[in-house]
């Protein structure tokens, strides 16, 4: 996937000027937020479970090496194989190796952000294997050659007419008079097409929401059932998951399960939560003959020792982006890489480098709503600020901004000089707006006055400090 995080400002401007996108984004504002609030309110223990969820993840991360070993033992004893991949390249080679051994021509895929992160589809295509996305949203964006714009609702940036257009372009034997104007007919069309692909696939690739150390189990959560058809029909099931998906026990999973769907879609539980342990057993009538887990690091082990380690608690529910005013305004593609929104602003600089993703942690008003709703209580604004510190230390922030802050700080550190300077500045500013109370344009504040008026200082521009000192003197 091409990285365009560097042009975030341009991406955002285009997104704001795109009426179709703006129409689609209104569904995010109206849908996810109220549903989450209702689901959370309906479970009195919700906030307490957020605490235990956070504690479970912290405990697991502090013993991650040992839980990985325990998990691996269990998978092997259930007849599955575990493959470690330090980098995206290593994960891709491992997956390709398994597919080649299975003589695979087509693979079906459950929705997996890790697969997006490592660019699995492009890689398989380059090597002559056809990947078929089966989550409805993922299928739609695959037809459109787009990346996901949201981590749980990948096609949330699209409207139904755009979906119809894509289906008509891709499903060439579709009669022209077939009505596809409603979401139901679109869903049925996709169901029919994908059913054949499910039954024909040689390999099924899914992600994992959890890897359970106690039992060597991978867990996926879906509403459509596509992940299940992906993992039970083909001969080979490959799970791609990153190291922080480990959770110690089934009871621990149960805690976090109670948070995931409520935070994501406002459901009490997603429709299908499926626990898979190894390949089919000797007498099983169905299920895959082979079961592989590819465990990806891709920079996370380093993150574990950094100020960003709390971001490894993330369970990919998407609540942070749903509640983010910036995400709501510009959508996910503007962020320019796989993970958008507040969690993306923390993860992307780690995964693709702060040089490429520096814009993202800056594009936040620090309103704190992401942290407020994060089921894992990840302090996202604090982490975005840590990235800003790193940028500042490494002189990556724009020179004009650094110069501006430096000049401002020079005065802010010297109260007497500051008060002298501001007295004059406010007088000038007040004089310039006599009779109007505000400016419609102002030099050096073009960003502001392009869209808003700028209030002039109250009255004659005498500062509070100046007036206070005068009152004290006369008292």
């Amino acid at each position: 996937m091409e990285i365009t995080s560097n042009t975030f400002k341009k991406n955002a401007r285009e997104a704001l000027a795109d009426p179709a996108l703006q129409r689609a984004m209104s569904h995010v504002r109206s849908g996810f937020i109220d549903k989450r609030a209702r689901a959370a309110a309906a479970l009195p223990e919700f906030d307490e479970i957020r605490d235990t969820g956070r504690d479970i993840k912290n405990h697991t991360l502090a013993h991650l090496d040992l839980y990985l070993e325990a998990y691996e033992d269990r998978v092997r004893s259930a007849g599955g194989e575990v493959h470690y991949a330090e980098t995206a390249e290593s994960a891709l080679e491992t997956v390709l190796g398994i597919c080649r051994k299975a003589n695979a021509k087509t693979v079906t895929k459950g929705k997996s952000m890790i697969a997006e992160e490592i660019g699995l589809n492009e890689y398989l295509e380059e090597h002559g294997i056809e990947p078929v996305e089966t989550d409805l949203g993922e299928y739609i964006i695959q037809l459109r050659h787009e990346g996901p714009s949201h981590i749980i609702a990948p096609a949330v940036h699209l409207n139904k007419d755009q979906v119809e257009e894509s289906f008509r372009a891709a499903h060439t034997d579709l009669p022209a008079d077939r009505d596809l104007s409603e979401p139901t007919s679109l869903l049925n069309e996709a169901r029919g097409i994908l059913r054949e692909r499910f039954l024909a696939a040689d390999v099924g690739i899914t992600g994992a929401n959890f890897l359970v150390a106690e039992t060597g189990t991978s867990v996926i959560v879906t509403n459509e059932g596509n992940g299940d058809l992906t993992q039970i029909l083909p001969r080979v099931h490959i799970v791609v998951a990153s190291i922080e998906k480990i959770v110690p026990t089934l009871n621990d999973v149960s805690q976090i399960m109670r948070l995931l769907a409520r935070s994501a879609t406002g459901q009490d539980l997603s429709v299908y939560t499926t626990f898979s342990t190894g390949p089919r057993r000797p007498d099983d009538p169905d299920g895959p003959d082979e079961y592989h887990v590819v465990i990806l690091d891709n920079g996370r082990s380093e993150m574990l020792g950094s100020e960003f380690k709390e971001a490894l608690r993330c369970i990919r529910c998407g609540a942070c982006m749903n509640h983010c005013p910036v995400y709501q305004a510009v959508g996910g593609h503007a962020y320019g890489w796989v993970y958008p929104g507040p969690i993306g602003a923390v993860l992307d600089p780690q995964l693709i480098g702060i040089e490429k993703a520096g814009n993202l942690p800056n594009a936040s008003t620090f309103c704190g709503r992401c942290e407020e709703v994060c089921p894992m209580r990840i302090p996202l604004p604090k982490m975005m600020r840590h990235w800003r510190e790193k940028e500042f230390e490494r002189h990556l922030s724009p020179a004009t901004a650094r110069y501006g802050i430096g000049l401002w700080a020079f005065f802010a550190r010297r109260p007497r000089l500051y008060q002298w300077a501001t007295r004059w500045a406010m007088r000038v500013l007040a004089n310039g707006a006599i009779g109007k109370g505000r400016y419609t344009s102002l030099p050096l504040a073009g960003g502001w006055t392009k869209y808003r008026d700028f209030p002039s200082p109250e009255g004659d521009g005498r500062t509070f400090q100046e007036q206070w000192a005068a009152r004290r003197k006369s008292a």
Partner: protein
Amino acid sequence: MSDRETILGKIRRSLAVDTNDVGRRAIVIARLEGTPRGIVPKRGQLPAEQRVSLFSKMAEKVSGSVGRVAKPEDVPRAVAEFLRENNLPAAIRTGGDPLLAGMPWDDTQVEVSHGPSDGGDPVGLSHAVAGVAETGTLVLTSGPDNPTTLNFLPETHIVVVAAEDIAGDYETVWDDLQKRHGKGHLPRTVNLVTGPSRSADIEQTLLLGAHGPRRLHIVVVG
């Protein structure tokens, strides 16, 4: 060095720990063996009969339908009735589950075929080993007599669950499963099913029947 060694080494460096720390190992073993429960919502902690009511209420809330019969012998008639009422063919596909196999299907007009599904069966019938009242969730396990494909490929999925197997919470189900399959062991597939398949990927419009069953009917026995 293998990717495995590299990753585990980097994790230990980041955590500033070494492999010989027996204290850490003991903590991990204790958690895996002790499997402490976290916070279990009060919602499901009810006497048996109320648990069944909550289960039914929650299952209906997520667009499942629920019927109830007094004893296993009554299930075939209830299933036949459901099929008739919904204009569905009187044919079901099921595994060899002993509970279902022991029912008097011959007393009805319902044609029963056995084995996994290849996608051609309109109606699948399964036996859930448990229900969870908290969320109206069914727990289905794979095994020689319980093909997983039946849970996903047919357009209509009928699931039989015994009232006495309806627990208040997930934790109770895990305990029961481990008693049956051994500590630290699960069947190949455990499906937690909460309502029929759905998607909201197009304009956030919720639609039933994405890739899995469009319809989920539960028969509670007892």
